[in-house]
């Protein structure tokens, strides 16, 4: 066999070995689909989303209509498979409808803090200098408060209500969001290809849009998902204290608090709303772990 044919054989072998490299996000998606825990958790989350948004499809009771005769029925009562609450309202119905406000009160603050905190953080990280220091030092002051304390203080002073609890939590989540986005932006700003773009005459806006945002949004989004898990616990906690959603509205934290008074009458029923808070928070936590793992190229070697 001559050298030339051998070379040719090698070349053709190399050709068949070359598989078009999948894009980054495509490979992240593939890794996510292989991760059984993340897939299971996502299915559960969609299930929760379905029973809350599609509540009229899974129950025919009115979440506000109680019956004096059917107060505090145990789990497994015919017609009320999860029992009833202290005014005789069907608990399964209340849990389904209650998820709407619980999820809204948890996701909206994270979204607001993602927009405001992300903007401030990227600004501080990219601009640096006096503006960056000013933003970061202001955030340091808010960091000096334990998050629950700050949320309770703001919500307690603004007065109870869904809107105030959303505002309070958004204020609590903005500082950590600013810090995370500032850190990743500072790292991205000093990457070689950003330097190259700057040297080749790209405008600041172009650099931010094409190079910085592309590198920064992923980690910020992952952080936001992990915040949702905290947000669910905190927003339900505010309602639990009587600072968030007001009765007779259905919300998991509020339901937990009112059923707590009946713990000696119907112990298991009283624990159910908390189970929903726990399950939802846990699912968001595991999902954010999964996404973080799938996005970290180093971990997947």
């Amino acid at each position, binding site marked *: 066999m001559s050298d030339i044919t051998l070379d040719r054989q090698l070349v053709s072998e190399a050709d068949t070995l070359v598989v078009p490299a999948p894009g980054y996000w495509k490979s992240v998606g593939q890794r996510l689909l292989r991760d059984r825990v993340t897939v299971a958790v996502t299915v559960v989350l969609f299930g929760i989303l379905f029973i809350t948004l599609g509540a009229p499809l899974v129950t025919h009771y009115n979440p506000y209509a109680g019956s004096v005769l059917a107060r505090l029925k145990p789990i497994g009562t015919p017609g009320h498979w999860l029992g009833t609450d202290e005014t005789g309202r069907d608990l399964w119905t209340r849990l389904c409808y209650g998820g709407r406000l619980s999820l809204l009160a948890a996701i909206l603050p994270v979204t607001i803090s993602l927009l405001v905190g992300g903007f401030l953080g990227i600004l501080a990280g990219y601009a640096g200098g006096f503006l960056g220091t000013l933003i970061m030092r202001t955030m340091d002051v808010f960091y000096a408060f334990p998050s*629950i304390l700050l949320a309770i203080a703001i919500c307690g002073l603004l007065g109870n209500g869904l809107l105030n609890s959303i505002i309070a939590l958004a204020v609590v989540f903005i500082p950590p969001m600013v810090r995370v986005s500032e850190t990743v932006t500072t790292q991205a700003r000093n990457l070689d290809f950003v330097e190259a773009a700057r040297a080749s005459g790209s405008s600041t806006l172009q650099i931010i849009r094409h190079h910085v945002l592309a590198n920064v949004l992923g980690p910020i989004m992952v952080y936001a998902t992990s915040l949702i898990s905290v947000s669910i616990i905190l927003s339900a*906690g505010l309602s639990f204290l009587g600072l968030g959603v007001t009765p007779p509205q259905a919300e998991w934290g509020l339901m937990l608090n009112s059923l707590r008074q009946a713990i000696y009458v119907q*112990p298991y029923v009283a624990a159910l709303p908390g189970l929903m808070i726990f399950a939802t*928070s846990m699912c968001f936590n595991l999902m954010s772990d999964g996404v973080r793992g799938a996005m970290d190229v180093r971990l997947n070697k």
Partner: protein
Amino acid sequence: MLLFAIRRMLQAIPILLGVSLVVFGLVHIVPGNPIDMLMPPEASPEVIAQMKAAFGFDKPLYMQYLLWLLRAVQGDFGLSVFNATPVWGQLVTALENTFVLAILGAALGFSLGILCGMVSALYHGRWPDKVFSAIATVGVSLPHYWCAIVLVLFCAVLHDWLPAQGMGDDSLPLYHRLQYLVLPVITLSLIPMGVIGRLVRATVLDILGQDFVGALSAKGLTRWPVIRHIAKNAAPPVLALMGLQFGYLLGGSILVETVFNWPGSGNLLNLAIFRRDIPVLQATILVLATFFVLLNLLVDIAQAAIDPRIRR
């Protein structure tokens, strides 16, 4: 080292000033004078003016702030507008009760967390790792107020093992009063356990991958001395998180204190909110936030003492 400590302490001063400004400002994000909200509608303007003058709410805002800060530094937070008793006295009693819970909860949570994290890392990928990692993940996403209710359900409602709430009478023997501590302390320990456990696992795994660990074993060190080296290297980040977690236990115990009806600072804050008792509210938040800042300061200095690389 001393220089680092002094510089770090000086840096805390502007933060504390900012904190005091936020605490003071928070109260004034709602329009209206704290006294107006408390007085009955039929009260005469003279009485209202008298009350405002008595509690110092008649001065311009910046004067109110300066006076408040000046007195606060001396431990004088004025009188509660709800029952006209000194705020400081109420706060000290409440803080003592919260400290008892927080210290015991932290001690339990931190030791369990370190144990779980260490075992998970040393048995990486095997069943102890899986079990402890699962426990830690649950601990992180547990709504602790719900956990408190579940504990009450099992230990006080279904079985008559432990008291459901309160902190017991002073006249009771110590053994009985300790029973009141069990459930709140367990509840408070769960989140620190999960958080510390996860960090210890990650940090120790990271250290185990470094060359010097292999070198230590290669030169013939047995298991325990190697673990001691690992522990020393893992200490700074874990210590930092412990400081934060202890601060959360102090400032965030309000939900657990509500469930157990524990007369601590969280309970005091809750009452102050519903009574719109502004002096108590300001004092509680300011003192808790100050503790949080000082705690972080202490942790920073301790970290630098352990790891000279941090002293820059």
